[in-house]
């Protein structure tokens, strides 16, 4: 049930570039992510023909066209469900879902949470630009309250979803956050997602130059990013700020910022444990808190049997208990009578 390696020839990024012209706005964050994925895939030890990339509808969802793998550009919101069927049908495949904040969290919210709870082995990359790009700029379920857009000229009135919190609440077993502009870290996240057997969810902050430029600039601008990004690393204290001069400590159920220059030192800083769900939930709450940094990296990982593995073990179990069924047997599995 593991992805087989049939292709010993070393692949490169080019092997994953399709012949289709890339059609995103020049400067769109999607380009960076595409490059990151194209760079990571050759290194995963998976034969090229075993990759399947499924998407919904949105700017982000055009992704499969640009990858020289099997790909399915499906309908709006349904990619996780399509990917589930494909993975159950053929567990050998390395299945990837590329989706947007609208695709995954608005129309597709239900499939997303159900896929997460079922723990079907796939890697969901949600490009969160906090806007509907393809339909030209309405607010999305991750847009901040009060956002002025085409459909909310006086400001939007919906409180946004907090994607890692929702994914954790749904029972997800791998929850991470990456940023389009941080190539090294993002590639690391993609690799880890691939390595996780079960549903991996990466919230990928992505800049939409046209309709929502700069939403994440705090986290990407050289001058501000140190202060605003908290890089989560398993087993490491949660430090951030210029020269890691700050840290987080847990008081009761709340995080507090401490300065590591006087009263506090590194031992007072809470150490990240990516296997602690309670911690992950508390960390996810930092997403929209102004005076606390935004965590990126792996919030949570848990190893649990995947849905499709259980499907196939039930089949094996049934076969070994009852023997492989035949049509003959099936047809005669109830009272029969013979007419001569």
């Amino acid at each position, binding site marked *: 049930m593991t992805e087989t390696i049939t292709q010993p020839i070393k692949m490169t990024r080019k092997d994953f570039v399709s012949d289709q012209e890339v059609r995103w706005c020049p400067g769109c964050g999607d380009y960076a992510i595409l490059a990151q994925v194209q760079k990571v895939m050759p290194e995963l030890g998976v034969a090229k*023909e075993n990759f399947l990339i499924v998407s919904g509808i949105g700017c982000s969802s055009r992704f499969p066209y640009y990858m020289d793998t099997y790909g399915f550009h499906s309908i709006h919101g349904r990619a996780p469900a399509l990917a589930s069927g494909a993975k159950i049908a053929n567990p050998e495949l390395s299945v990837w879902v590329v989706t947007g904040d609208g695709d995954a969290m608005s129309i597709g919210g239900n499939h997303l949470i159900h896929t997460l709870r079922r723990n079907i082995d796939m890697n969901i990359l949600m490009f969160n630009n906090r806007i509907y790009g393809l339909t030209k700029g309405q607010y999305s379920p991750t847009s901040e309250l009060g956002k002025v857009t085409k459909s909310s000229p006086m400001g939007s009135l919906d409180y946004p979803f907090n994607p890692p919190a929702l994914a954790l609440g749904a029972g997800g077993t791998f929850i991470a956050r990456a940023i389009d502009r941080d190539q090294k870290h993002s590639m690391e996240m993609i690799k880890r997602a691939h390595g996780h057997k079960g549903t991996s969810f990466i919230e990928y902050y992505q800049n939409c130059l046209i309709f929502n430029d700069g939403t994440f600039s705090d986290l990407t601008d050289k001058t501000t990013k140190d202060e605003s990004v908290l890089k989560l690393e398993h087993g490491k204290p949660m430090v951030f700020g210029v020269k890691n001069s700050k840290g987080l400590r847990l008081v009761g159920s709340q995080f507090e910022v401490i300065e590591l220059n006087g009263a506090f030192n590194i031992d007072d800083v809470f150490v990240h444990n990516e296997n602690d769900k309670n911690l992950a939930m508390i960390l996810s709450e930092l997403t929209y808190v102004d005076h606390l940094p935004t965590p990126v990296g792996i919030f949570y990982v848990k190893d649990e049997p995947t849905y499709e593995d259980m499907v196939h073990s039930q089949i094996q179990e049934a076969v070994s208990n009852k023997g492989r069924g035949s049509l003959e047997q099936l047809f005669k599995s109830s009272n029969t009578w013979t007419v001569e």
Partner: protein
Amino acid sequence: MTNSKTNVTELTEVTIRFAGDSGDGMQLTGTQFSDNTAIFGNDLATFPDYPSEIRAPAGSLAGVSSFQIQFSKLDIHTPGDDLNVLVAMNPAALKVHLGDVKDNGTVIINEANFTKKNLNLAGYDCNPLETDLLKNFQTVKVDMTKLVGTATEDLKLAPKLIARSANMFALGLVYWLYGRKIDNTVDFIQKKFAKKPEIVEANLRALKAGYNYGNTLELVKTTYHIPKAKFEPGCYRNMMGNQALAYGFMTAAEKSGLELFYGGYPITPASDVLHYLSGYKNMGVKTFQAEDEIAGVVSAIGAAYAGDLAITATSGPGVALKSEAIGLAVMAELPLVIINVQRGGPSTGLPTKTEQSDLYQAVWGRNGEAPCVVISASTPADCFYTAIEAARIALKFMIPVILLSDGYIANGSEPWRIPDVDSLPEFENHKTSDPDGYEPFDHSSEFLARPWATPGTPGLEHRIGGLEKWDGAGHVSYDPENHDHMLRLRQKKVDIIAEEIPDEVPYGEASGNLLIISWGGTMGSVRSAVEHIHLENKKVSHVHLRHLNPFPKNLGDIIKRFDKVLVPELNLGQLATMLRAKYLVPTIQMNINHGKPLKTSDVLNKINEILGE
């Protein structure tokens, strides 16, 4: 075994309905009677009718559950119209069903339940057993519960268990009335309740008590004998419609060398397809109970892309939800079967009742020009062959197929001649692994089927999706001419299937005064009516369509050879609309929407009315 003083009369066919409270075990009683009847060798058809509510209050009208069976020495097609025998276990059952009993028919009653409370619940002001309401019937009143109590006195059973075993008393009585042996049911009880010896004993004693009661008490002057029917030689079993669908798709999977994937969400009356399939893990069946109907069909599309024989089953409201995704399957040209076990609509409608009102939806219910193949099953056993036909078409033509069944045939049953496994055809499919000249939307094959390159196949990497595609290469295309071409090509993919399915042969003469065209679960009633009318030498013929889109290619020619066309349907005229649009033929409609199967007698009346005009 029959008491010497009782006469035995031979009959051609009989219709019995077992009716009682949901808690009275009428479905089990009916199933036992029909299994037994089948094994005896009659032809038969059954029709279970559940209340919609989960356990409606005991004794209420809404809580009545019934099971009807017609059995015969001849070939029959329906569970019968009017009843020879009604078994009414309580006043509510009598109230609901008495109107269907023939004059002078037999009504068997469990007096025990005719309490004041139950009479009230059924809306009887006074006890019908004490009025002359039943005077036109042969009424058999027995306090079954009491007699079961007596027969099990030594066991010191709980009164509840005694009351629950009254159904076996009724069954025993009816077995006696039709000169049947009880052995099969004895076996069944012993197996079914093996772990609960007390229940086995209570049921067996009740069964025998009922049988002996008839035998010894000269209850009625005559018992009946219905000789065995003439069946084609072979091995038979009973088969229900939804079960037959499950069997059909498992067969198709085996015969095509594919694995079967089922993605779906429970809904009455389709859920049993999922239930049956989930029980056959040892045949490799993968069932995925999805979060909703959309995920059900979309997961199946994913499985189809990945190379499985993929199906989904639902009912009308579920198809509504799936319709966007079915359009995707049309665009992606993937093999997929969507089963719709129809129920009464619109909206939630009459969810446990039968109807044929989703034909428009199947043919026309999608955005854009999104033609699908539509076929329908006509009897419980026919569901097996319809499933195979659906899979065959989907695989051969790389196309989604909508299979219409309905609540009536889904839950009904009839004897099924078990086919020889080897005689069942193998299936073609379009899997490919050859990169040479491969194009994902290559339509150069005879029937326009595109190649099926599944993920995991080296060198055939490609992308598909819901945007318009360039014929051949399959990349996204906004080219105006290509779009027009592709719309017509997808339509043609459906239309040319008409070339490949058998011509229709009317039942009856090739020309005449009246042609009846029907589809789906009304097959039996219409055929029976036509058989009747043939006895009077009338020039009435019958075409029962399995293929609804496309129609068989000679249908237009057949129609031309008749003066009039009658289209009976359980809707407001959906097939009629399709026939009128396609053949510009005036149709006479017969539309009855009672949430029940069509009655043979109604068809017969309509035929006579038309011929008499």
